[in-house]
């Protein structure tokens, strides 16, 4: 069985500076895979390249068996790869409902969209309560929920979440993480980028540790969680 996402020797550069220096990993359908690492390791760059917002300088990206390396962003979304970008990037002056609707921009099935909007409200009741409110008035955590709900609206085969816990209070972070666990239980395939290694690894089937543009360590989520060097470098133990 081929993996849903296959990344091979991916290299991305900003001008002359290479931010991702040849990484390879795969995501199988139904898995949660996480990329962890410090600031500047190239995690966000990787996700932005996968979703077509950046163009790679080398390597291969295959999604569902097709090469998406040179595809524009909107086509990649239509193939079923959704990206919830770092910093949430919700549309602050649109209503919550309009935000969700934009997530389903490429879908033509109106009834299905309505159903999925209700599903998003079930998943995040606070969004349903404030559906007519401008999204910018939500708190950081609620905005993150909206960003995730919006990404789910395109019915993705693979959901990429970039730093969903960034800047959130511990309680809100727990809530977001348990939502991700819930999505996993429902069978959503997720590629998760996180700085909070503990939380990400305990959810993940597979984990990859990135350091300055390279994957330095791979393994199962549990395996990495108990790995000596990972515990030292990322989980704050000495």
């Amino acid at each position, binding site marked *: 069985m081929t993996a849903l996402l296959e990344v091979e020797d991916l290299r991305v550069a900003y001008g002359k500076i290479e931010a991702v220096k040849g990484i390879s990993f795969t995501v199988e359908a139904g898995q949660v895979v996480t990329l962890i690492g410090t600031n500047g390791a190239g995690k966000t760059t990787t996700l932005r390249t996968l979703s077509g917002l950046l163009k790679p300088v080398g390597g291969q990206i295959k999604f569902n068996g097709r090469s998406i390396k040179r595809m524009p962003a909107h086509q990649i979304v239509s193939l079923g790869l*959704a990206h919830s970008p770092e910093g949430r990037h919700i549309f602050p*002056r*649109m209503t919550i409902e309009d935000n969700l609707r934009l997530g389903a921009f490429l879908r033509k099935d109106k009834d299905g969209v309505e159903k999925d909007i209700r599903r998003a409200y079930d998943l995040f009741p606070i969004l349903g309560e404030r559906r007519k409110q401008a999204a910018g008035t939500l708190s950081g955590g609620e905005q993150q929920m909206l960003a995730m709900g919006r990404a789910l609206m395109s019915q993705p085969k693979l959901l990429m979440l970039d730093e969903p816990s960034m800047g959130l209070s511990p309680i809100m972070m727990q809530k977001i993480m348990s939502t991700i666990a819930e999505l996993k239980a429902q069978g959503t395939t997720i590629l998760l980028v996180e700085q909070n290694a503990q939380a990400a690894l305990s959810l993940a089937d597979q984990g990859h540790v990135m350091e300055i543009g390279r994957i330095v360590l791979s393994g199962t989520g549990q395996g990495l969680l108990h790995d000596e060097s990972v515990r030292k470098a990322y989980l704050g133990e000495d």
Partner: protein
Amino acid sequence: MTTQITAPETPSAPAFGAKASGLFGIPAPVGRALAAGGGVLTVAATFLAWTWTAEFPGDLTVYGYPGGLQVLVLIGGVLTTLFALASHGVRGVRRIAPAGADAAVKLAALGTFATAWYTVLAISVELGGLVNLEPGGWIVAVTSLAALVGALALPFERPEPDPVDPDSTAWEKTAHRLAHGWQTVKAAFASGSPRPLRELPSWAEILVVVAILALGLTVFTYGIGTSYDELFIGFLLLAGFGFAALNKAGLVAHATQITGRHQNVTLCGAFVAAALFPFTQTDDQYATLGVYILIFATVALGLNIVVGLAGLLDLGYVAFLGVGAYAASLVSGSPSSPFGVHFPFWAAVLIGAVASLVFGVLIGAPTLRLRGDYLAIVTLGFGEIFRITANNLDGTSGPDLTNGSNGISSIPNLDILGFDFGAPHSVGGFTIGRFANYFFLMLVVTAVVVLVFRRSGNSRIGRAWVAIREDETAALAMGINGFRVKLIAFAVGACLAGLAGTVQAHVTYTVTPEQYLFAGAIPPNSAFLLAAVVLGGMGTIAGPLIGAALLFLIPNKLQFLGDYQLFAFGVALILLMRFRPEGLIPNRRRRLEFHDAADAPAALGRTGA
């Protein structure tokens, strides 16, 4: 023209640290009585003669009925009296101020005072001395001042006094005091949020809509028909303060709510009201202004799709108007057209719109990959390229197409289904002249543009435009094809401008390159178009229409400004951007953008993260 702008002109700066809760130490009931009495007496004074000679325009020499500027003062006086009574709590009248009448009476009195004193001063200055004032003039000066003093004495919630840091320098202390004074003035003109609107039966609400539109038509017709500078200035003063007063009284909010509930009725009604405009005129003089305003406003609305919805700053938009106008004039049968063909108008419209569309795509395709400032610079360049190219296609510098700087002249009048647009027609006893004919035609074009704007604004593509404007990264991540969506906005905008251009060619008889400048004294040009959109309110329908009407009328009516027109325009624009950046008619979303903290404190207060 908003409260915030006019507030610093308040002649009575508040005494700092005063204990009284009004701006003056007069008890509130006395203030109210003074305002109401002053209002009534001001109204009475407009029936007196203000000057002895008819040399001052407007016939202010007659006892018994008001004329010219007196009518404006009369309206102001009535408004002041009504709001003063409402502030006093008189039954029935109280209803006209759902958000509290105190701020409204202050503004109404200020407007009346400004108009009355402007008139009196204008008489004295123009005729050479106070001796030219009849008793009526003196009386109105005193009564309007009394009303203003009374109104300003009404209590308001003062901002918390903020102690001066004793270590600061003298300059910092002064700045601090000024800032506090400014806060106090702002507080004096602040009003609460309006009482919720009672649900009326829908026929009653529609009647209200009709009344609002009738008022709008009256105000517009009056403004366009002001025949001398003084009257127009008085009109602007009173209209500005009057609108601010109604706004503070909460009436504008209620009107918005009602028209919002009956959007289709309002829109249709607005077109009927606009179509009635030529029937209020006795000759074609002001219909000329009307049709020019309509052309300007329609193009501004087209630009609003590009700027207001899609957020693409286009500084060369007038070129598309030019393409449409040239295309129509070339096939109009004009003797200066090298083609020498005379197409029917529908074909000319089609050619003009398609030509503009093609130009829009041609210019947009390479430039829309740029963001923000770069796009603005490139479009500015393309606008100039169009004008200079049109100038050079004269047979000497290039192929003969546009007849160079002489332009395509003697464009024949339109003739649609036997209806000759060049000749006056008689409709139900009213004579409809040449410009009025074109006014009606242009109104149809405006309707088309409004329709396109509304339909696209509320559609999938409209949401995509707004998404691109708000956050391009996120929009791309949603699967929106940013480039294509922007190109559509650009092309639709261009096409609509071209449509207006086809009519413009016939209205102006001549199409020359100099009509399509980036900036010039006469609208439409790219700078004024953009200003109309920004001033009126981006992303709305009414905004650019009102903005364009003001931007056309003000330079047209205030001829005495002469060379200072552009300067005055610049100052006005800066003031507006400082005090009301969302434009006169703000879009719901835009208001959030500029007044986040003020409008959504409750929601912003509860941060869960």
